[in-house]
């Protein structure tokens, strides 16, 4: 597959500045094709394809990058950093830190993927690891996703704990056969004789003009496969924690990262910690409505939350984190409290995580709902390249605000 993310959109993610003090402001200086023309009214295409015209004098830049991601978190979540000590780190570095710590801890952990060795990985998640652990333990593979995923499975069956990197989640569609037919299955069909403690990870989601093939949401396609677990990280804290937990898990885990979140900065603890793979994260407790989201949409939701708070609403925001299985305990408790659910996701409307979550909540908590569940998703279209069009395929904070207002009427 052509690796075109050397293009403009992902440039910031690809080459971290030498000083690791890249702060979020830098991302507002997005490449020149930002839409300076879009002042005043912008048309927001809702996922149900009705068009809302809303006055919004802010330019595109403010929409897509939430500079206060860190600040919003430290108010609330118990899952975030507790102490003022710790160290500041970017998300991709947090992933690397987690990976490196696990590789130090357990000699069976190894990494394989395209350009993960001396190149350090396309998003620099494996930077420096080949120098430290050697070329065999951090393995550069030829371009054959199905086959190096298969290789990871074979190595896992023999006792190693491989971390397989897909350069972009979309490329792992080539590995679907191995993931579905072998990775998810062999523990079961072998009667429990062979375990497959493999971690499959990579960046996915809609980036900045990466084109349709590099904007896949694979969690939709994989969610049905029995035998695998899926988690999505969204902050440096949970990225490191989930990476470590995934590596230690005996089950095959697919860790979804997002192309646009790699440069998020946060202060994380110095001490060793892992995040529970099956737990959702309470981002902002509230009373009026439960907003369920994950990965990048968390930030659009939090942006919308600020507006909603100003308007007098009290949304409860949960980052579901565990995409398979769903943390119905946390979600259920929230539904029982607020009685209204809004799901905000980046998946396509049809067959996405939101669709399954809607079904699960309806089945389990129907009696507690005062209104039908609303699900905001991307439209069922391939992601267009043009920036304006691409933006309208991703749920924007304004849509979230409107949806909550309608839900809470």
């Amino acid at each position, binding site marked *: 597959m052509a690796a075109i993310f050397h293009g403009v959109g992902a440039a910031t993610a690809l080459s971290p500045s030498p000083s690791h003090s890249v702060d979020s402001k830098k991302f507002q200086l997005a490449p020149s094709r930002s839409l300076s023309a879009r002042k005043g009214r912008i048309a927001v295409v809702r996922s149900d394809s009705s068009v809302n015209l809303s006055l919004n004098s802010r330019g595109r830049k403010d929409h897509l990058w939430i500079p206060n991601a860190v600040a919003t978190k430290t108010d609330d979540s118990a899952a975030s950093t507790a102490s003022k000590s710790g160290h500041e780190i970017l998300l991709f570095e947090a992933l690397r830190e987690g990976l490196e710590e696990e590789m130090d801890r357990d000699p069976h952990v190894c990494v394989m993927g395209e350009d993960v060795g001396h190149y350090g990985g396309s998003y620099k998640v494996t930077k420096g690891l080949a120098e430290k652990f050697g070329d065999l333990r951090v393995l550069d593979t030829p371009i054959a996703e199905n*086959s190096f995923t298969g290789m990871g499975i074979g190595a896992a069956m*023999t006792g190693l704990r491989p971390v397989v990197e897909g350069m972009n989640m979309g490329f792992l569609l080539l590995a679907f056969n191995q993931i579905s037919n072998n990775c998810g299955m062999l523990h079961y*069909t072998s*009667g429990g*004789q062979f375990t497959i403690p493999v971690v499959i990870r990579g960046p996915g989601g809609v980036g900045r003009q990466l084109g349709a093939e590099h904007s896949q949401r694979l969690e939709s396609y994989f969610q049905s496969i029995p035998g695998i677990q899926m988690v999505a990280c969204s902050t440096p804290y949970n990225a490191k924690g989930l990476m470590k937990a995934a590596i230690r898990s005996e089950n095959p885990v697919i860790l979804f990262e997002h192309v646009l979140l790699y440069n998020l900065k946060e202060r994380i603890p110095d001490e060793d910690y892992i995040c529970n793979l099956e737990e959702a994260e309470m981002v902002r407790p509230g009373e009026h409505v439960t907003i369920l989201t994950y990965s990048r949409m968390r930030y659009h939701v939090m942006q919308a939350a600020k507006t909603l708070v100003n308007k007098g609403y009290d949304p409860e925001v949960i980052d579901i984190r565990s995409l398979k299985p769903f943390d119905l305990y946390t979600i259920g408790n929230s539904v029982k409290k607020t009685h209204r659910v809004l799901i905000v996701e980046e998946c396509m409307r049809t067959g996405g995580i939101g669709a399954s979550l809607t079904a699960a909540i309806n089945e389990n908590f129907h009696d507690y709902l005062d209104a039908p569940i609303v699900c905001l998703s991307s439209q069922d279209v391939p992601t267009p390249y043009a920036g304006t069009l691409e933006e309208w395929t991703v749920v924007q904070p304004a849509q979230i605000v409107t949806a909550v207002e309608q839900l809470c009427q």
Partner: protein
Amino acid sequence: MLPDSQVAGLNQSKPRNSAVLRITLRQVLDFPGGKVAFTPQMEFLSESPEVRSPCYRVLDEYGLSIEHSSFAEVSKEVAIKMYSDMVTLQTMDTIFYEAQRQGRMSFYVTTIGEEAINIASAAALSISDIVVPQYREPGVLLWRGFSLQEFANQCFGNKGDNGKGRQMPAHYGSNKHNYFTIASTIATQLPHAVGAAYSLKMDKKDACVATYFGDGGSSEGDFHAALNFAAVLEAPVIFICRNNGWAISTPLSDQFRSDGIVVRGKAYGVRSIRVDGNDALAMYSAVHAARKMAISESRPILIEALTYRVGHHTTSDDSTKYRSADEIECWRVKRDPVSRFRKWIESNGWWCDETEMELRSSVRKQLLHAIQVAEQAEKPPIRDLFTDVYDVPPANLCEQEKLLKETIKRYPQEYPAHVSV
């Protein structure tokens, strides 16, 4: 060949210094990938060789060793075990196939005609070598000590099956015997084998991986990538191709146009050999040598074993529909690898008719008994439907199990009475 005037014309079009204008053969330049000699003669490499790659064989069709042949020494004990296991495999196939035809077993895959590949390759490996099979290599497991009862248990999917009744019959697997569980998918095991070899290499073990696939499997993308990976990684894998002429109903001419599979090794930078797969001694020698090279030189080896699939693809196939019954008979009777090897051990004075009769009747009895026991054994409980999906059953599966149990309790007549919950 271009006429001189045109060649001269070509050079004159380049305004370079006169040194370059001279046509020199064997000029060399450094492109990525290394130095390569130039030639001004345009020549295409032929798509097919004038002479096909020769096939290594040591015993003739009468089981006598060919003059000037070189092969690995096989002791009497090993030779007798090899032959006995070949007979056992052949008998097991016959009896289990019949059991399926009689409706006692739901499905079966025979290995008839490929007994030498199975047993001889297994004999040349050590128990610490990891075997990653396709699905027509039960002989390797048999050699390693999997019992006839265990084979029968898996085919009947009963409580004694170490796979807990989850796979199709003949999809064996045993981590105890270093034999990966068979998946029905074609050629997906080839990258697994490379991964396993990578693991052995990391641990610097004195062992290699042997993986098997058919002529049809060589068309899959995973074949290409696995060979490529193994070569780049310098992984100790032995790729054994059972080229038996048929991929269900697809003959070789519809599968590929290369000179079989052996020539593909070169394309990937993998050392390869073509062997008479029905010659047990040649198979043994080739795998023996391959193993040594794979481990000491840390490299992959490709072995193409030519053979013939005497049986149907599986019990769901009737191969007389696409090939002549005469052809099948000819291979079954006249070119049987088992009787060929028998002649060789008899010629060494290690075997006779009496021992033959004893062996066959004993094995037959054991197999019939094994089937009987397996047939009557209990099936795995409903609980095993939900275990081993993950290390620990998650909440949703516990719920689904509860639901199923309730349904069974409410409608007991819809469910088989003899399967416990």
